[in-house]
């Protein structure tokens, strides 16, 4: 029987393969009383399990970089070694065995339970998160106490599997045999969980946050994992399987066809040169960006450098990361966005946000301006790396002039510091601001006086101006990129940029959507930045149109009063100016959370509509 489960798409792609369950959770441990004369033996059993745990960790650390283990994961494992000597963890467990005559497993579980109570009271998520380390290390000791459970990897079959787990900790992923895993699905976690980031860096599909996953999937069950739509299909029917195989082939065929466009110049039929750049999260992705024909990096999100690590990345680590992205890009511009992280995003292992309204909370530039030490480190790293290519710096979530001036003054301070230290850095780094708050749109004219470029963050701009949290299913249909309110704001920013002579880029998902892309060009946006894989398609479109066909189109669109009408009108125009574009094959595009790919004969309007709302 086929079962479809939905979760959060965390890493794109579709795979079909056998499931492999990995039990990271420890079975419930029942109290067991130890005979008085067996107490010493029980204590010894505990210490043996601790010793085995230490050996396992040293084993992983010993293999170290040879196995490609991230140094941040190494740091975590080193912390685990400290916990294995901890008098509050191991010492108290021993004390409980001796005094209460509890079994080692039960005593340890109780101690961890006490710790959980202490940590869950902490208000600061950075501290609360540390509990995950204690749980992780305790789980390892428990597994060794219970015996028969080995590290993931040792007991994986040789064939390639889709790994199914409740959650994966950094120490789990450190020991993964990565060559044998073709996809991940986990019960918990969000798009920035450790599993999600790992999957993206391995370029294999992942779906996270799948409720009820472990009850529905059995070992060796055939599973379809659709990381683009957040779907897990267990025991697929022949038809479903064929549909997915067809979709997979079509994606491949589309990709091959589009790849031919990747390395051609981004120029319209009437000679307008536009720019299509890539959004990346890790320095290595710059290689993909080049392969897919990016003119530069329009958005280097630096959050991931921070989220991968349990500790803050040092200036040197950041410097190396920025430098390598710049070097990969060989003189093409690279826009490095300063940290767009908030209180909630630091605590990615904790599912519950700590602010009532984290998107409007302590994040991005607000956070950085109040954490000058951390901000200084990042600015220094970017300035220093700037020598190795065409670096640009960008501040996220600017709400107005005052905030921007504060950030710029601090940047000057940091530059002065570097000058005094006689450290080599890029003195004239262009500085841009993200336009993603409605207030920034309204004061764009004023902001432009301080900035070298604008970048419209359409995802947030849509969310903030329509007051729609698109994660919320009940209102997801209101998340409309083509809402006239949004389009008029974008038009305003484009005009301001034009008047003030500064470039305006757009770096949201909207830019990658073929229809939205035409609309944006019509509104006067000439620089688009998107995920690398989306670039060839957009280039193909740009190379097939004339800009003069779009100028009236943009004006007319601004007079339309509903998103639905804009969409219908845009589609009509799109079909006229691009009759040969395969609009009817659009189902190869991501459609939205939890929706399976549609059949080829799907009504075009439905597909476009759905893809616009993704």
């Amino acid at each position, binding site marked *: 029987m086929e079962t479809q489960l939905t979760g959060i798409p965390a890493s794109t792609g579709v795979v079909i393969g056998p499931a492999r369950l990995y039990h990271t959770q420890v079975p419930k441990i029942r109290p067991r009383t130890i005979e008085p004369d067996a107490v010493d033996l029980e204590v010894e059993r505990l210490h043996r399990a601790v010793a085995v745990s230490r050996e396992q960790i040293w084993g992983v650390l010993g293999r170290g970089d040879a196995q490609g283990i991230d140094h941040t994961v190494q740091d975590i494992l080193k912390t685990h070694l*400290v916990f294995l*000597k901890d008098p*509050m963890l191991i010492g108290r467990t021993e004390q409980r065995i001796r005094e209460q005559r509890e079994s080692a497993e039960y005593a340890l579980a109780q101690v961890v339970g006490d710790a959980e109570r202490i940590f869950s009271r*902490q208000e600061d998520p950075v501290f609360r998160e540390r509990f995950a380390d204690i749980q992780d290390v305790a789980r390892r000791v428990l597994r060794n106490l219970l015996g028969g459970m080995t590290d993931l990897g040792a007991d994986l079959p040789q064939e390639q599997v889709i790994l199914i787990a409740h959650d994966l900790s950094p120490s789990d992923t450190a020991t993964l045999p990565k060559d044998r895993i073709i996809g991940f699905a986990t019960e918990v976690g969000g798009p920035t969980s450790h599993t999600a980031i790992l999957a993206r860096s391995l370029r294999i599909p992942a779906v996270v946050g799948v409720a009820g996953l472990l009850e529905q999937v059995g070992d060796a069950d055939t599973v379809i994992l659709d990381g683009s739509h957040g779907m897990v299909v267990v025991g697929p029917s022949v038809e479903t399987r064929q549909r997915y195989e067809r979709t997979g082939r079509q994606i491949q065929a589309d990709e091959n066809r589009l790849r031919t466009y990747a390395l051609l110049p981004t120029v319209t039929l009437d000679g307008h040169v536009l720019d299509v750049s890539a959004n990346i999260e890790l320095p290595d992705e710059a290689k993909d960006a080049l392969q897919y024909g990016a003119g530069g990096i329009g958005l280097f999100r630096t959050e991931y450098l921070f989220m991968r690590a349990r*500790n803050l990345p040092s200036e040197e680590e950041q410097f190396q990361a920025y430098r390598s992205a710049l070097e990969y890009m060989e003189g093409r511009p690279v826009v490095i966005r300063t940290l767009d992280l908030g209180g909630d995003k630091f605590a990615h292992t904790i599912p519950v946000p700590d602010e009532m309204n984290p998107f409007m909370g302590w994040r991005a530039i607000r956070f950085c301006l109040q*954490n*000058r*030490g951390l901000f200084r480190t990042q600015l220094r790293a970017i300035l220093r790396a700037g020598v190795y290519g065409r670096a640009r710096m960008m501040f996220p979530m600017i709400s107005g002039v005052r905030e921007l001036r504060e950030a710029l003054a601090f940047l000057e301070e940091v530059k002065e510091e570097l000058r005094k230290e006689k450290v080599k850095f890029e003195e004239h780094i262009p500085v841009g601001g993200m336009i993603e708050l409605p207030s920034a749109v309204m004061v764009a004219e004023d902001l432009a006086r301080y900035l070298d470029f604008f970048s419209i963050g359409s995802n947030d701009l849509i969310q903030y101006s329509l007051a729609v949290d698109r994660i919320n299913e009940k209102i997801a249909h209101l998340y409309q990129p083509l809402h006239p309110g949004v389009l008029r704001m974008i038009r305003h920013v484009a005009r301001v940029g034009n008047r003030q002579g500064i470039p305006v880029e757009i770096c949201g998902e909207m830019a990658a959507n073929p229809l939205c892309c035409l609309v944006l060009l019509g509104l006067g946006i000439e620089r688009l930045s998107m995920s690398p894989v989306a670039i060839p398609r957009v280039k193909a479109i740009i190379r097939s149109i004339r800009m003069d066909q779009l100028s009236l189109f943009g004006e007319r669109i601004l007079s339309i009063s509903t998103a639905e009408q804009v969409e219908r009108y845009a589609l009509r125009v799109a079909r006229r100016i691009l009759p040969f574009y395969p609009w009817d094959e659009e189902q190869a595009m991501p459609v939205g959370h939890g929706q399976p790919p549609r059949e080829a004969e799907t009504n075009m309007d439905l597909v476009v509509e759905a893809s616009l709302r993704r």
Partner: protein
Amino acid sequence: MNETGTVRKEVVILNALGLHARPAALLVQAVSNLNCKIWITKDDYTVNAKSLMGVLTLVAAQGSALVITAKGEDAQRAVDRVVELVEGKFGEE
């Protein structure tokens, strides 16, 4: 140094992020092999400074005042090491 080799010292956490994982681990490692008992007190909460779990539960953010108390042969050395780490902002920034 006062009665029976007890050393006591007050320090204020200076680094921006406080006694989070890395500094806490550094602190614990700095004292764990010394021959003494050592505690850290914040307000009226005291933990064993040789316990990472304990030190983390202090939630000592920037500006927190901590009292370090050590007893035993290496008490002075232990306190000195902690003070050095705290004043050196744990090598951050």
